[in-house]
């Protein structure tokens, strides 16, 4: 009865109801599109950054993160590897050994960051191969190296030349070696181009006298939404001397960037919803005012005020529900379109993103949270607004209402 009564009451003033519903509609439409774009962009930023190098999760010696030296590298036990691969959401695992060395040609010397990787596995995760602009990629046990384009230019070397690396290996043993250059890497990030040297993991371990040692295990999952669960599982399984790190611990700047940007969007959405809230409130206020007599009659003949309040509450909720559903109906096709056809960015922003290894596209997400958040917000607003009729029916004086 309440349900029907509320529904019919809703359409007594069609125009007003439609205007109110329309305000909710536009609010939800804009908010879902904005959040979808924001969250989509963030997740693509994260995916890009993560896939570019760090991976979603790393397992390291617990000392390594604070002091990245060879001496803090680890020898991953079979047990550890099994623990990682036994988590079913884990898609890839690979090992890296990283350290610094001096790279030189005949006369020129420069500091370089040497990464020992498992070529095929590394390529699956970071698509290293795609940055090779000259020469070729390498394979396992290959004695050759890949060199960043700027570094190669600085050393005046090219494919086929022999790079000399000098450094200190595990526990201070001196490391020296000659490596033929197989290919030149050109990353979008110039910093990387200035210092990268890639070689096969085994070759690298030999070079640094660090047999079987690695700096970290790179663990990949499908996407960032899978990450927290996997992270928790790994954290529970793996204990000292190993440490498990998530991408957000490894990329605090990115987290900060996203958080501050997200906060901006949320302020905008909050302002939007406050306006909508006042719109609904004024409608409900008018609605209560013009029905005073009717409310008086209903309570007079024996309707409890609480039932009356529920009816009005439902009216408010209907406005919210219709608005939200209409908003979704409007935004879902738009979001799906942009999900499939991300907006390509131009100019400075695009260049800056490319430099950070992020594709210059505005991505949209279809994450359910983008939608159910709006539903929750609208429901919260309507609930707060519905306190007004609740309050008004509670303090209704029947004899006075009947005179209205």
């Amino acid at each position: 009865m309440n349900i029907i009564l509320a529904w019919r009451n809703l359409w007594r003033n069609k125009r007003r109801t439609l205007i109110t519903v329309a305000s909710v509609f536009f609010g939800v439409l804009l908010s879902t599109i904005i959040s979808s774009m924001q969250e989509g962009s963030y997740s693509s930023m994260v995916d890009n950054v993560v896939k570019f190098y760090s991976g979603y999760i790393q397992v390291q010696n617990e000392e390594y993160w604070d002091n990245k030296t060879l001496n803090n590298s680890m020898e991953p036990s079979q047990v550890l590897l099994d623990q990682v691969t036994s988590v079913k959401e884990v898609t890839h695992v690979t090992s890296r050994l990283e350290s610094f060395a001096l790279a030189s040609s005949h006369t020129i010397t420069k500091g370089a960051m040497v990464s020992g990787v498992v070529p095929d596995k590394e390529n699956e995760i970071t698509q290293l191969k795609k940055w090779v602009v000259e020469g070729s990629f390498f394979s396992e046990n290959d004695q050759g190296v890949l060199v960043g384009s700027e570094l190669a230019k600085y050393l005046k070397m090219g494919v086929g030349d022999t790079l000399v690396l000098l450094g200190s290996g595990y526990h201070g043993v001196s490391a020296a070696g000659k490596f033929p250059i197989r290919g030149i890497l050109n990353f979008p990030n110039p910093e990387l181009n200035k210092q990268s040297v890639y070689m096969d993991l085994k070759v690298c371990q030999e070079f640094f006298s660090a047999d079987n040692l690695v700096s970290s295990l790179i663990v990949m999952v499908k996407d960032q939404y899978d990450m927290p669960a996997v992270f928790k599982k790994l954290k529970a399984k793996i204990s000292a001397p190993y440490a498990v790190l998530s991408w957000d611990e490894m990329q605090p700047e990115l987290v900060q960037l996203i958080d501050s940007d997200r906060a901006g969007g949320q302020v905008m959405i909050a302002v939007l919803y406050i306006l909508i809230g006042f719109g609904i409130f004024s409608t409900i206020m008018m609605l209560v005012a013009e029905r005073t007599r009717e409310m008086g009659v209903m309570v007079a003949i024996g309707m409890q005020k609480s039932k009356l309040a529920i009816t009005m509450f439902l009216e408010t909720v209907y406005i919210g529900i219709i608005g939200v559903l209409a908003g979704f109906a409007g935004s879902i096709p738009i979001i799906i379109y942009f999900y499939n056809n991300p907006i390509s960015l131009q100019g400075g922003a695009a260049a800056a993103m490319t430099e950070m290894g992020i594709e210059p596209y505005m991505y949209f997400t279809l994450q359910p949270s983008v939608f159910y958040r709006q539903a929750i917000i609208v429901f919260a607003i309507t609930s707060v607004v519905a306190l007004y009729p609740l309050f008004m029916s509670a303090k209704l004086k029947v004899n006075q209402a009947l005179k209205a």
Partner: protein
Amino acid sequence: MSIIKVNKLSKIYDGAEIPVRAVDGVDLAFEQGEFTAVVGPSGSGKTTFLNAVGGLDRPTSGEVIIDDVDIWQLSGRKLIDFRLHNIGFVFQAYNLIPVMTAKENVEFIMELQGRSKEERFDRTKSLLEAVGLGERLNSRPNKLSGGQQQRVAVARALASKPKFILADEPTANLDSKSTETLLDIMETLNKEENITFIFSTHDARVMKKARRIVTMEDGKILSDERK
């Protein structure tokens, strides 16, 4: 035995400079099956009196006892429930819920009482037939004339099987023909079903139909005559 006993009932409005004694120490009793008109000039206290008897407006002092219940001792929710189960109301105008049909308006009160669907359905039909609206079950109030609306209100008042029906100037907004129809219906219900009616009016033709006439002036009972 009286179904309503009113003892030393007073309602004083303090708002103005001089307090208004809208109802001033009224003692009165109503019997089952009576057909009573409360009459008096405008401002004599009829509405205030009926509202106090009907549990709608709290008196300043005195008691209203309906079937041994001192109604003004009941808490808010209990008083509303008491009205629902014991008193039928017909107001001057705009009695009905505009978004509900005649049938639904009558059913509504039985639904509040928690009566079964079948009972509601049967009773609604027979009541609307009794007030001559068997053909207008599915009309909304705005499609009914003022007189028809008041007849639906009477049907609704009866639907809850109350002990009595209070009607404050039920004919005030009606033309003479509708007034006559409504009163005939009320009279028939009173005679045939022994329904107790207490209604107020300042219309002489309406007064004539009553079998008991309580005349008020300045909140006091001036006379109380039975025919």
